[in-house]
């Protein structure tokens, strides 16, 4: 049996070695004190500008539909956005169509708001889990208190000071959809036309949303962890986005290097085989 060439050995590299390399790369750049300044992408800038237009006391609906699987991307986004909303003195309410997100977003919001002195019930509230977003939006457009009935703490919606005078979704100024799923078309289709929609998708979902961004149906977008880093930069805060984006940056570099190496090995092996023939 002929011994394998170096190029053949490269092409049949043990996948466990690749896994180990990626793991070391992610951990190293996650903890390394390297902080690169991001270039603010236009969708993130638009997102920031839209929230800047809000006035103190305006009402925002946050549709939080992510679970732990996309925590690395959606958590930094939501934390950065909450910080901005609280800085503007805006009231906000949460709704979740993902059962796990009901607890994740509620616990996250409790932590972030209590640190900023925002009071539950007076400045923010969580409506909990609803099984069907389309039906919930249609219901909220007509009659929000009858659709939601009570918040996660069991308080009737009418008794929450944060929703004083709110009859329907038309009384809101903005919807922010933080999600790894394709829920934004549902908000675009069924929410009132005057409601401004902002979108926080995972990186893999962002490509599809550029059409809505282009048409103005979405007013701004924060894409994944790197979008969160840009947003943190705009707000001048240090959050989870920066280290996460750092790890992603260098993982991309590693992937590119290995794609090039794989192609180089393939070309060299072909050349070797031609010479042998």
């Amino acid at each position: 049996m002929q011994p394998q060439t170096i190029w053949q050995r490269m092409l049949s590299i043990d996948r466990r070695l690749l896994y180990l390399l990626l793991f070391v790369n992610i951990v190293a750049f996650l903890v390394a004190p390297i902080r690169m300044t991001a270039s603010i992408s236009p969708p993130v800038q638009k997102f920031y500008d839209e929230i800047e237009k809000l006035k103190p006391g305006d009402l925002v609906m946050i549709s939080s539909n992510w679970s732990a699987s996309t925590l690395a991307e959606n958590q930094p986004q939501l934390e950065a956005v909450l910080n901005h909303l609280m800085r503007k003195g805006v009231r906000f309410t949460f709704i979740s169509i993902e059962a796990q997100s009901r607890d994740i977003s509620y616990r996250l919001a409790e932590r972030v708001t209590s640190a900023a002195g925002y009071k539950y019930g007076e400045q923010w509230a969580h409506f909990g889990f609803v099984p069907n977003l389309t039906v919930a939006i249609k219901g909220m457009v007509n009659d929000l208190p009858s659709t939601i009935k009570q918040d996660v703490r069991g308080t009737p919606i009418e008794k929450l000071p944060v929703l004083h005078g709110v009859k329907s979704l038309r009384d809101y100024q903005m919807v922010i959809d933080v999600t790894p799923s394709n829920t934004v078309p549902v908000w675009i289709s069924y929410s009132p036309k005057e409601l401004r929609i902002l979108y926080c998708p995972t990186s893999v979902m962002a490509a599809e949303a550029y059409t809505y961004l282009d048409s103005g149906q979405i007013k701004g977008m924060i894409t994944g962890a790197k979008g969160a880093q840009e947003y943190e930069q705009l707000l001048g805060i240090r959050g989870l986005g920066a280290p996460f984006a750092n790890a992603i940056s260098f993982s991309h570099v590693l992937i590119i290097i290995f794609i090039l190496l794989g192609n180089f090995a393939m070309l060299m092996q072909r050349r070797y085989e031609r010479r042998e023939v």
Partner: protein
Amino acid sequence: MTPLTHLIAQSIWRLPETLSKDQRYLYASLIVLGAFVLVLGLIPVLQTLPPRGRRAVIVTVTFLAGLFFAAEFFLPVDWRSIFPKDDPTRNFLTPAIQPAQNVLQIIGALALGLGTYGLVRLHLRNVVQKRTQWGYSVVLLVAFVTMATFSIWNTLAEKELVKKTPFVERGFSILFDFTLVQLDAAMFSLIAFYIFSAAYRAFRIRSVEASILMFTAMVVMIGVVPLGAYISYTLLGLPQGPAPADADLWTRILHSAGLPTIANWVLTTLNAPVQRAIEFGVGIGGLAMAIRLWLSLERGVT
């Protein structure tokens, strides 16, 4: 004469305001009981019917249910003639959306219950009959019961229906924050390792198209992350932001040569139209499928 639509709007969806609170409860209870009896009565009727008759009932109910939502969305009946101060965008079917929404929420909740029942039944059978790998079923059942107990207990405590003890709080936190969330995140993160391995093995330049795709992917991968900005604006010293209106051609090229600018151009100018075309096709396909389901033309519906 009062139009039929006005009569429906005023009398069917809302109980008259003149009724006392007790009478309203009585009427509402009777309506719920009547609906319950109707649904329960339908099951034996459907079972006694021949397949053709059963199909006719299901097709009719499906069509009427779909028609309701379509009619509510499209009907341009002027609501203001009945309720002048109300929202003009509503029509006579709009008040029924709320009850319909409640029905759908209940059906959704029933589906969750049904799924839970099916899962527990299957794994209980595995354990009782000691089928292959029944140990995993034991783990599932124990995890299911423990998580459900602490989760329900914690939710009741949040609603102040039971006392919130440190045991419940700590137990729920260990199970949810430190177990479920971490395991879920770890499971999903495995994708990155598979993508890395797959990209190394499969991303090969075998044609012109593959070369274009790979080059574009690389530019976007680096352009969208902070490293792209660092390479372009710090290492190469390219000018950031749009070029001034009176800039010469070379300055304009330099302003457009940054990796983040190129990546954004690819996403907005190349990606967006293609995505729009795909979504348009998917939308038309979805519409056709919805009509087929609504009219019960899809095989396996009935």
